[in-house]
C-alpha cells in the first residue's frame, strides 16, 4: 500500500512541471479534457490547477458515474427501496444523489426504507444470506470499472439459483460518451487533447480509443489517478499537440494493456448487452452508451421483475451542466452555481458528487482567485 508515495513525490512533480513549462508554446492555448471524475478529484485535491502554465486549461469531463445518473433512474431506485420487504444495496456516494422533488436514497432511509451501502457488489450476496426472506436489489451504477463486479454478482446469483437477488442495471460505456463529447467539440470550442480513463482502461484496454483518436484527430493519453500520472499525461499531450500528432498513448502502463482484462470483458459480454440508447444526466440520450441485462438473466433483472418503467425528468432550466460537461462553459458561467445549486442542494449533474466539475470547484476552489 506504500506504492502511492512514489507517484506523489513532490520533487518528481517539480521536474515534470518544469518540463511542462519548457514545452508549452506560449503563442497558443491547450484545452485538455480529463474525462474521469477520478482525475478531476485528484486535480482539485492536489491543487494541480495553479501549478500549470496559464495557457494549459483543464476541462472537467462527464466521467463521474454518480453525476451522469439521470434523475428518472434514481427515482426507480427510490421507488424500489420504498417497497416493503426490499433491501436496496448501493455504492456510498449514490446515497445523497437527489432524485425528483428533493428525494434521495438517504432520505428514503430516513423514512424507513432499508438501504444498505456496499463497497463491492459481492457484499450483496452476504446481505442476501443474512436476510433470506428479503428481496435484495443491487442498484448497479458506474462505467466499465464497476461493471465486471456486477456481472460476477449476476453469474454467482444464477449459479446459486438465488431468487431473492436482483440487479437494477445502470452501467454505461465510456467510449460512446467520449465519442459524443468529441462530436460536440467539432462544433467548437475544440478540445486539443484528452486525458484518458485510468480504471476503466484497466478493464477495456487502450485499443477502444484508437478509432476515437483517428476519427477526431484527437491526442489521447491514458493516465493513472495519481498526481504524477496526470502531470506526465499532460506533458505527453502537449508534445503530441506540438508535434501535430494524434495517437493513443498509455502513461498508465503499470496497469493498462492494449487488450484490457479479457476475463472481465468476457463476463460482461455474457451478462450484458448494449442498449440502443441511454440517457445521461446533463448530456441527454447517447446511442449505444448503456448496458442492459441479457434476457437469459431476466429473472434477476429488477427492471422486468418489478415492472419498472423509466420516466425521464428534465434538469433545472437555469442549469448549465450540459455545456459544462462538454467543456463549452465553466462553473462560474452558470447563474445558479453557488447560489441555488450547492453540494448540499445540487440542481445539476456537475454538483451532485464531489467528482463533478461544479462540486470540485465549489469545494476546493471557490476562494482561490486563480482557480479555473
Amino acid at each position, binding site marked *: 500500500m506504500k506504492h502511492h508515495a512514489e507517484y506523489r513525490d513532490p520533487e518528481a512533480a517539480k521536474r515534470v512541471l518544469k518540463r511542462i513549462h519548457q514545452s508549452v508554446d506560449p503563442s497558443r492555448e491547450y484545452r485538455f479534457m480529463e474525462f474521469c471524475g477520478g482525475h478531476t478529484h485528484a486535480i482539485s485535491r492536489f491543487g494541480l490547477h495553479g501549478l500549470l502554465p496559464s495557457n494549459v486549461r483543464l476541462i472537467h469531463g462527464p466521467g463521474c458515474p454518480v453525476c451522469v445518473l439521470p434523475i428518472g433512474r434514481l427515482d426507480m431506485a427510490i421507488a424500489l427501496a420504498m417497497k416493503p420487504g426490499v433491501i436496496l444495496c448501493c455504492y456510498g456516494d449514490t446515497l*445523497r444523489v437527489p432524485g425528483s422533488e428533493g428525494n434521495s436514497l438517504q432520505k428514503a432511509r*430516513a423514512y424507513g426504507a432499508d438501504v444498505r451501502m456496499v463497497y463491492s457488489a459481492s457484499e450483496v450476496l452476504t446481505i442476501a444470506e443474512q436476510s433470506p426472506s428479503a428481496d435484495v436489489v443491487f442498484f448497479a451504477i458506474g462505467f466499465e470499472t464497476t461493471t465486471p463486479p456486477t456481472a460476477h454478482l449476476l453469474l454467482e446469483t444464477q449459479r446459486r439459483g438465488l431468487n431473492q437477488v436482483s440487479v437494477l442495471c445502470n452501467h454505461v460505456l465510456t467510449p460512446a460518451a467520449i465519442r459524443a463529447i468529441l462530436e460536440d467539440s467539432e462544433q467548437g470550442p475544440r478540445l486539443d487533447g484528452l486525458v484518458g480513463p485510468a480504471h476503466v482502461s484497466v478493464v477495456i484496454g487502450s485499443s477502444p480509443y484508437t478509432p476515437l483518436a483517428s476519427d477526431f484527430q484527437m491526442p489521447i493519453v491514458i493516465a493513472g489517478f495519481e498526481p504524477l500520472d496526470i502531470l506526465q499525461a499532460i506533458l505527453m499531450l502537449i508534445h503530441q499537440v506540438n508535434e501535430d500528432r494524434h495517437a493513443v498513448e498509455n502513461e498508465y502502463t503499470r496497469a493498462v494493456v492494449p487488450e484490457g482484462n479479457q476475463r472481465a470483458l468476457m463476463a460482461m459480454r455474457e451478462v450484458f448487452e448494449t442498449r440502443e440508447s441511454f440517457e445521461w444526466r446533463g448530456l441527454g440520450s447517447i446511442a449505444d452508451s448503456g448496458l442492459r441485462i441479457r434476457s437469459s438473466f431476466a429473472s434477476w433483472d429488477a427492471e422486468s421483475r418489478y415492472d419498472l418503467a423509466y420516466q425521464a425528468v428534465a434538469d433545472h432550466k437555469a442549469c448549465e451542466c450540459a455545456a459544462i460537461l462538454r467543456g463549452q462553459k465553466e462553473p462560474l458561467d452558470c447563474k445558479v452555481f453557488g447560489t441555488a445549486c450547492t453540494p448540499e442542494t445540487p440542481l445539476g449533474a456537475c454538483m451532485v458528487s464531489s467528482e463533478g466539475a461544479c462540486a470540485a470547484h465549489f469545494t476546493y476552489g471557490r476562494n482561490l482567485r486563480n482557480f479555473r
Partner: protein
Amino acid sequence: MRRPIAGAITLAHGAGGRASHQLIQEIFLFHLGNPFLQQGDDGAVLDPLEPGSQGGRWVTATDAHVVTPLEFPGGDIGRLAVNGTINDLAMMGASPRYLTAAFILEEGLSLALLDRVVASMAAAAKAAGVPVVAGDTKVVERGKGDGIFITTSGFGLLPPGIQCGGCRAKPGDAVLVSGTLGDHAMALMAERNGLIFDPPLLSDTAALHGLVADILTPRPAAVHVLRDPTRGGVATVLNEIAQQSKVAIEIDESCLPMRPEVTAAAELLGLDPLYLANEGKVIVICEATDADSILLRMREHPLGQQSSRIGEVLATSRPYVEMKTRWGGRRLVDWLMGELLPRIC
C-alpha cells in the same frame, strides 16, 4: 426569519458537518438559545456563585455516545463516554471534577457485555481521577435502541486567568495538533469493513486534561483556542473556529501527522483523513511567539509525542480554511457535507 421546518432526520444530521451545524442553529438554538449556548463551544462556563468572586468558575458539558461496534480496537463505548466529556471540559481549559452518566439499554443486551463496558468506564474514570457521581438507567424494547447509548455530563473548575473559546483565534496565531489524525474513525471503519492491520490499528480514545494542563501552565493567556477534532475531523473543527473567530486558517499538508496505515486505508476506502474523527487529539491555537515552547511541552507528554505545528491564522473578510498541498498547490478545506461517504471511483 425562521426557515420552514420540513423533512426528517438523516444520518447527515449526526455526522458533525454542515447539516449538524444547521440542525443545532435552526432547532436547538432557535428554541433553547441563551448566552451560554450561543458561545458554540464544547462546554459552558457558569456564572460565579458570588458575584465578583476571585476563585475559579464551574464549567459544564454534556455528550451523548453511540458507537458501532460497542467494543472496538483500543476502546469501547464506556471509555469513550468518560473521555469524551472529560475532553469537552478540558477544551474549555477546565480541570474536570465530576461526571454523571445516563444509560439507555436495549432489551436483550448481554449482561456480560454491559459489565465489561461499565468496568472499562470505571477504569477510565479512575485513571483520569474524575468520579462518576450520579447516574440513571432506562431500558427500551428490543429494536428501539442499539445495545447501549450513554450520555455523560461533566463538571470542571476553570481557574482564574484562563479563557479559551472558539471565538478567540487571532490573525498571526499558530495552529498546533497533538498527534496523528484519523486513528479513531479508521480503527472503527477497519473493524466494520474487515480490514486487518498488523499490528492492529487502535482508536486514540484518551482523556486529554493532563496534556491540556501542561499546555496551559506556562502562560495561559497565550492559548486562545482548544478544540478536540472529533466528528467531522480537523477540517470541520477548523471551519467552526474560522467561522466563530471570523478568521481564515491556512494549514500545510506536509505538516499533518498521519499514520501510513491510516493514509493507506483512507485511500482504499475513498475517504479523506482530514474529515475522520479523533477521540484523543487536541487542536491548539496560540500566539505564534509561544508556539515552539508549547509544542515542546506537548511532545514531552505521552499523549502528545507526535505534536506538530500545522498552520496559521490569517485576517480575512470571509472565514475559510485553506490547505497548501505537498505539491505547492492550494485547495479549500470545506465543511463536511452530509455524511462521510466513500467515492465510487
